[in-house]
């Protein structure tokens, strides 16, 4: 996380130089500094900062796309023009370990089509989700794990 | 320097309260602060009153924003008088509490909340802004809620439920009334309101809003038919709290009625003041009857609080200078006497060793504590209006004012209520002082720590002395009351003091219109 601090510091410096103490100034400085740091990334060999930020951004974009899809699916369900709904509650074994990983996974599930995190077992090994279109629950479970958990873990680890 | 003096009645208890809150874990510090704050308040209030009575109305603009834009504090004779008397009651109850309050209540925040109550009371007395008045009412209300329930006994909680429910209605009503008044005048400053209201085209609407104020303040003042919260609650909290409630809370309602219906709503006195008159008359009788229906000392006193509110409002409703002076005099008398009665009832309860003051438990005081009887005799006789104590002068002034304006029915109601009170006082004396007790009174005072016993007795002595002093030498207070009455009857000085030379105050004479109006009870 040292690079984040450095990034911010540089952004502040940018603001000072420009005598522009607005949010706009900070944002501009931050992006600029980030680019500079990225260009200078060979200086920080073991740093995961860039993978995280860029990976995170990619994941976010994917997630937004999923939300659109999800909303569309729901809309169809609501308006009765899609496939008939077939709810089920499915247990998903967790590979994610840390709080952040689990939470991110759980949130993602909720935001994506037809699924919703109901609960996480106290031993943090199983996630229970409610699915709207669960004609084949086992398939859904596998899809979810493959599509999301792995992505999240890739970004965070 | 005078504007600091004028703001002092709010700032002193407020600062005291804040310091006490900071010292929430140190009851001893709180005690010292509370005492020091109360004494300071009495001293400053005295100086303020002297200044006001001698040099004229004192005005200060909070934040130096001129009226009617900023909030004005005004010490006119009535305000100054009320603040002095309130501060003395505050001191008495604070001192009594030092001897009486139990550790649970003390650690629950008695001292800071008590000071907050004083803030509310003094604030309501001194503010010249209607919305600000609402705010101080709320300060008073929340602190009264807390003080009422402090200790959390079953009885208290029960009482608090009723008190809170009804008072929340009252407070919403007041806020609504203030808002609606703003909605037709565009101002909140009371002096400014008095100038703008006559220019409102729709005077019927003004009357409706005035009635809303009667309701709102009537609820605070415990006028019929809005008094129910009072007998339901006043007998339940700690003694010092009962006393300060009985002494001050309803009187703030009366004060507000007095202020608003002499300064602001004087356009339709034939209607508004007739309503007040009816309410006052019924309140007197119902209150006195209530006090006779109960068989409990404190509850009887609660009803008496109600009964005498009627007397004060009667003066307001008649609204001649003499009648207004009578109300002012009666206010002072009643505050002192009611505080005293509740404090002494607490002491009597202690002596009878009981949890309550049911007549069945009392007795034998004449034998056990003759000196206390002497002390008790003064407020009791004053309550009954026996001369030459303070209550007599109040009654005399009211009778005079009523007869002069041909309000014979009201005078009759006043006298009948007075007679019922005499009955009550006789009965209380018989039950409390004369009757042989079920169990002999405890010699609690003797067994108490010296300091605590003093704390319990000193306020009683002081209050009885005040009552007695007013009684045998009434002229000082009478002339102050006359000054108050005159200033309430003709409020042009008030308006001029607040608005300065900017506005041209029209003399506003309350009561002039009323005598033309025929619809009097």
């Amino acid at each position, binding site marked *: 996380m040292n690079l984040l601090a450095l990034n911010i510091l540089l952004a502040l410096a940018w603001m000072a130089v420009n005598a522009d103490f607005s949010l706009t100034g900070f944002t501009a400085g931050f992006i600029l500094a980030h680019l500079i740091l990225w260009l200078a990334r060979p200086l920080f060999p073991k740093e995961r900062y860039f993978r995280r930020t860029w990976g995170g951004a990619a994941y976010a974009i994917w997630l937004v796309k999923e939300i659109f899809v999800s909303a569309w699916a729901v809309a169809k369900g609501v308006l009765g023009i899609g496939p008939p709904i077939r709810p089920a509650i499915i247990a998903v074994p967790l590979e994610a370990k840390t*709080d952040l990983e689990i939470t991110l996974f759980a949130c993602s599930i909720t935001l994506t089509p037809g699924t919703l995190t109901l609960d*996480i077992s106290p031993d943090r090994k199983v996630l229970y989700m409610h699915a709207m279109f669960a004609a084949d629950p086992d398939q859904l479970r596998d899809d979810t794990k493959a599509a999301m958990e792995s992505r999240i873990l890739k970004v965070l680890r | 320097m005078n504007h*600091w003096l004028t703001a002092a009645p709010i700032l002193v208890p407020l600062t005291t309260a804040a310091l006490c809150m900071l010292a929430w874990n140190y009851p001893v510090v709180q005690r010292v602060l509370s005492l020091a704050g109360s004494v300071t308040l009495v001293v400053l209030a005295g100086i303020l009153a002297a200044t006001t009575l001698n040099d004229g109305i004192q005005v200060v603009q909070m934040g130096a924003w001129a009226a009617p834009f900023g909030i004005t504090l005004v010490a006119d004779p009535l305000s100054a008088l009320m603040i002095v008397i309130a501060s003395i009651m505050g001191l008495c109850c604070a001192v009594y509490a030092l001897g009486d309050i139990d550790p649970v209540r003390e650690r629950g925040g008695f001292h800071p909340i008590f000071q907050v109550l004083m803030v509310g009371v003094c604030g309501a007395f001194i503010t010249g802004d209607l919305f600000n008045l609402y705010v101080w009412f709320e300060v008073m209300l929340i602190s009264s809620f807390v003080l009422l329930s402090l200790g959390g006994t079953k009885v208290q909680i029960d009482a608090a439920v009723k008190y809170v429910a009804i008072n929340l209605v009252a407070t919403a009503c007041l806020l609504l009334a203030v808002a609606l008044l703003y909605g037709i005048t565009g101002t909140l400053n009371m002096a400014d309101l008095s100038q703008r209201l006559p220019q409102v085209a729709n005077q019927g609407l003004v009357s409706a809003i005035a009635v809303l104020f009667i309701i709102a303040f009537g609820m605070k003042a415990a006028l019929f038919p809005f008094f129910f919260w009072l007998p339901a609650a006043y007998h339940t909290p700690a003694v010092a709290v009962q006393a300060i409630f009985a002494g001050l809370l309803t009187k703030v309602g009366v004060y507000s009625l007095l202020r608003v219906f002499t300064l602001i709503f004087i356009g339709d006195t034939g209607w508004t003041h007739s309503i007040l008159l009816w309410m006052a008359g019924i309140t007197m009788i119902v209150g006195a009857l209530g006090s006779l229906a109960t068989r409990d000392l404190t509850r009887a006193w609660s009803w008496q609080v109600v009964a005498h509110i009627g007397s004060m409002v009667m003066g307001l409703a008649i609204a001649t200078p003499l009648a207004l002076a009578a109300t002012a005099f009666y206010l002072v008398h009643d505050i002192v006497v009611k505080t005293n009665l509740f404090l002494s009832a607490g002491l009597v309860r202690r002596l009878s060793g009981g949890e309550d003051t049911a007549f069945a438990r009392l007795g034998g005081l004449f034998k056990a504590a003759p000196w206390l009887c002497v002390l008790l005799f003064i407020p009791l006789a004053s309550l009954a209006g026996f001369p030459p104590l303070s209550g007599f002068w109040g009654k005399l002034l009211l009778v005079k004012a009523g007869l002069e304006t041909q309000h014979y029915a009201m005078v009759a109601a006043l006298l009948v209520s007075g007679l019922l009170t005499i009955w009550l006082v006789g009965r209380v004396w018989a039950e409390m002082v004369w009757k042989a007790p079920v169990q002999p009174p405890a010699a609690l005072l003797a067994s108490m720590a010296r300091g605590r016993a003093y704390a319990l007795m000193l306020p009683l002595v002081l209050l009885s002395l005040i009552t007695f002093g007013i009684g045998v030498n009434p002229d000082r207070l009478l002339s102050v009351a006359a000054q108050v009455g005159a200033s309430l009857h003709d409020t042009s000085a008030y308006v001029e003091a607040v608005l300065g030379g900017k506005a041209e105050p029209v003399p506003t004479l309350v009561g002039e219109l009323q005598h033309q109006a025929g619809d009097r009870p």
Partner: protein
Amino acid sequence: MMDSLILRTGVRILLPLMLLFSIFILWRGHHEPGGGFVGGLICAVGFALHALAFGIDAMRRVLKADPRTILGAGLLLGILSGFITVPTGEPYMTAQWVGGLGTPVLFDIGVYLVVVGGVLAMVCALMEEGGA
């Protein structure tokens, strides 16, 4: 206390954000919507949420000071900010400005603290004694 991992993680992220937001709101309240009340309320809501998620004791640990102390300090600050006019001889609460900082801002901070302290005192008492 709500035994939920997701909620707790969410709160862990949200609480600092809310505190920041509340101070932001307090700070700019003089010029744009916001101010001591709103700021104080947001801050208090944040801590209340923390208490809901982690329990009252954890919240007290995060808060460090007793709500009543915060409350008293806030009230005192509010009162004292009006006393700064003593040397100038102007009435109570007359605003004094030094650059962009003025006694009204100080007063607003007092308001903020009182709201935080008052609300949290309520929440603490209700949660501890309510047992709910």
